[in-house]
């Protein structure tokens, strides 16, 4: 067990993911056929041996609450420590909307103070990867850093999708000497993975100090501003990182799972990703039903043809239907002889017989939750 607790900032509805976050936070967005993004953060922590996790919720956290329940699927239903959903405290004075990350973290200082662990892993919720933090924490302690930032090398960052893009520059001793947030011309390809390790007391001090000076954003007002004063170091993660910072990015990272190397990275059997159990039957292929180069979850009934797609739990593909290059979320019903290409179908979409719907590789079309076409 690590002497650390996790604090996950789930943010407010993000405009980057458009309709996907219309009624849910980024943390509750479905990903990879049977997961929600929060599953990766929680599993990373639990696989590290961290069993005290606070989740800072904002408005629209009901689907998150439904998904997490008591935390038992992540083995986080515990008498000591466990899972804490920290909802905004709505009062007559407080509308439940935070001014920024600093304000949000400050609102759960009670939880932070009560946590008995020495270190904290602070995480956002739109960056997906599969690792444990043990090595990062060890490196943090050994280096004597104030803050250690997890980062990876990005090769083809699409600048049009830039969002919370924090670039690191190191000196020869491995200390971060410059941080740039959303730079137009990044000087380095070392990009923060939105996970930070520090002592709990450091976090407490930095947050209170920033708040007292009416500064509300952790990245710009604490990290970027204080890069000279603080001993900030980095820990490089070498596996696959999925940044859900745009709808295109969301589409691309789901499709990337069809690449064996990527899915092996994200679904390592050594570090399983836990999620809510739905008690679905195993997928069944019937009659002419076929799938190639696709990910298909439990509860699917495949009677049509599926190619280069990701199917979530309980999708029904009727005879004669063709689903290509698409992401189809839970419980969609694809009618007979219909045709889908480059589509994203949110939960519970129903596509009628013979319908023909196509997006384009660079601009997949999204159908909102519950749409009937």
């Amino acid at each position: 067990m690590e002497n650390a607790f996790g604090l996950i900032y789930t943010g407010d509805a993000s405009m980057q993911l458009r309709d996907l976050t219309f009624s849910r936070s980024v943390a509750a967005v479905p990903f990879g056929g049977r997961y929600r993004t929060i599953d990766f953060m929680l599993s990373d922590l639990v696989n590290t041996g961290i069993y005290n996790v606070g989740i800072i919720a904002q408005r629209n956290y009901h689907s998150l609450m439904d998904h997490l329940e008591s935390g038992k699927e992540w083995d986080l239903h515990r008498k000591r420590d466990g899972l804490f959903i920290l909802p905004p405290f709505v009062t007559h004075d407080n509308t439940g909307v935070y001014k920024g990350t600093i304000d949000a973290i400050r609102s759960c200082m009670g939880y932070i103070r009560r946590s008995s662990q020495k270190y904290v892993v602070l995480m956002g919720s739109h960056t997906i990867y599969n690792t444990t933090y043990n090595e990062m924490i060890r490196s943090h302690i050994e280096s004597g850093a104030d803050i250690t930032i997890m980062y990876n090398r990005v090769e083809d960052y699409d600048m049009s999708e830039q969002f919370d893009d924090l670039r690191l520059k190191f000196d020869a001793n491995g200390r971060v000497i410059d941080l740039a947030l959303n730079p137009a011309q990044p000087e380095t390809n070392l990009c923060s993975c939105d996970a930070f390790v520090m002592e709990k007391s450091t976090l407490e001090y930095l947050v209170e100090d920033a708040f007292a000076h009416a500064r509300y954003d952790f990245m710009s007002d604490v990290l970027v501003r204080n890069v000279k004063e603080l001993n900030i170091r980095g820990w490089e993660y070498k596996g696959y990182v999925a940044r859900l910072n745009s709808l295109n990015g969301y589409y691309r990272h789901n499709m990337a799972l069809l690449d064996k190397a990527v899915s092996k990275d994200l679904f390592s059997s050594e570090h399983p990703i836990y999620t809510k159990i739905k008690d679905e039957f195993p997928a069944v292929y019937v009659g002419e039903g076929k799938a190639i180069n696709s990910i298909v979850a439990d509860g699917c009934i495949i009677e049509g043809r599926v190619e280069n797609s990701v199917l979530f739990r309980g999708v029904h593909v009727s005879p004669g239907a063709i689903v290509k290059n698409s992401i189809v979320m839970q419980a969609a019903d694809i009618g007979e002889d219909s045709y889908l290409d480059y589509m994203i179908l949110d939960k519970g979409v129903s596509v009628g017989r013979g319908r023909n719907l196509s997006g384009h590789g660079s601009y997949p079309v999204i159908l909102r939750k519950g749409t009937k076409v």
Partner: protein
Amino acid sequence: MPKKKMIAMLLAGGQGSRLGVLTKSMAKPAVPFGGKYRIIDFPLSNCVNSDIDTVGVLTQYEPLALNSYLGSGQPWDLDRMNGGVFVLPPYVSGSEGQWYSGTANAVYQNLPFIDQFDPEYVLILSGDHIYKMDYAKMLRFHVEKNADATIAVLTVPMDEASRFGIMNTDEYARITEFEEKPKQPKSNKASMGIYIFNWRILRPYLVNDDKDKSSSHDFGKNIIPDLLRAGANLYAYDFKGYWKDVGTLKSLWEANMDLLGQRPEFRLADKDWRIYSKSPAMPPHYLGELADVTDSIVSEGCVVYGNVKHSVLFTGVHVAKGAYIRDSIVMPGAVIGENAIINKAIIGEGAVISPGAVIGSDPTPEDGVYDTSLSGDITLVANTVTVPEGKRVPVGMIVQ
């Protein structure tokens, strides 16, 4: 402990020796079934779906797998404060212990367990049947008939009746006679080994049966005949629907095959009668560019690059490119190498079929014409066995 209306006692003691090497290190109810289930999921889910929240699982043979599988009972919603699922092994009382010597004896040895719930009714179940059944309906029948005991019966073809325990009933479904495997069956109502007893009535019979040294302490052989002799009110409850005793390799294979097809004999895809099971944390399955999967069940964690026809792939099975699987069941975590051929076979948990190996005969029938007959023999590769490269395992052989 609050009183319960009905609790279930699930007889899971069987070594299941007719399942041979599959049950070498686990009790029969822990044998995998239907892609992501184990046999015991079916009676347990039936209980939960019938609002029975207290189940004693009577077992003495290799209980580790079962014990680990059942855990706190949470996957079946049986992690209850009052009630839940309890594994009941034999134990030492006074100065010596006694192993279970029959189905009735196993229940007898757990009288104190049952008594603590003070139930009105006790449901006796077996741990090796595949079926969906609403025990609450059976209980309503039992109560309406004012029965002392009710036995669930299945209508079997008359010419097969002599293989079963047959209940002869009057026009009101009251059992007048019970014959174990009769040569000249008078009826085709076969006992399914599912009983509801009034606990008040059954209890003294169990106590007396224990004293009878000549008894084989079995419900079918002793308790039911004793009750009949005493003139008790025994009724037969007609069950309509799929039911299969998966006590042999052939019937286990056949029951898995029954899950396939456009109108399967037994439908897992049933939102109204969910079968619960303990899920491993595995990603959805992946079918590769060249995968050709037809008429099959594919479970989570599977990765398929080869051909799979009319088969059941359990969780985490890997099928390499060029491999060909047909009319077979491949249990959790098995690995099928490149160009290997599996035909009408059972591949055990974690078995490895190396590239080019052939299990069973080379397949000859055309696509779409599957062998679901029980005439030919099943070929079996036991759990964790590795079949070497290019090796041919002939039809009907058991590799262990």
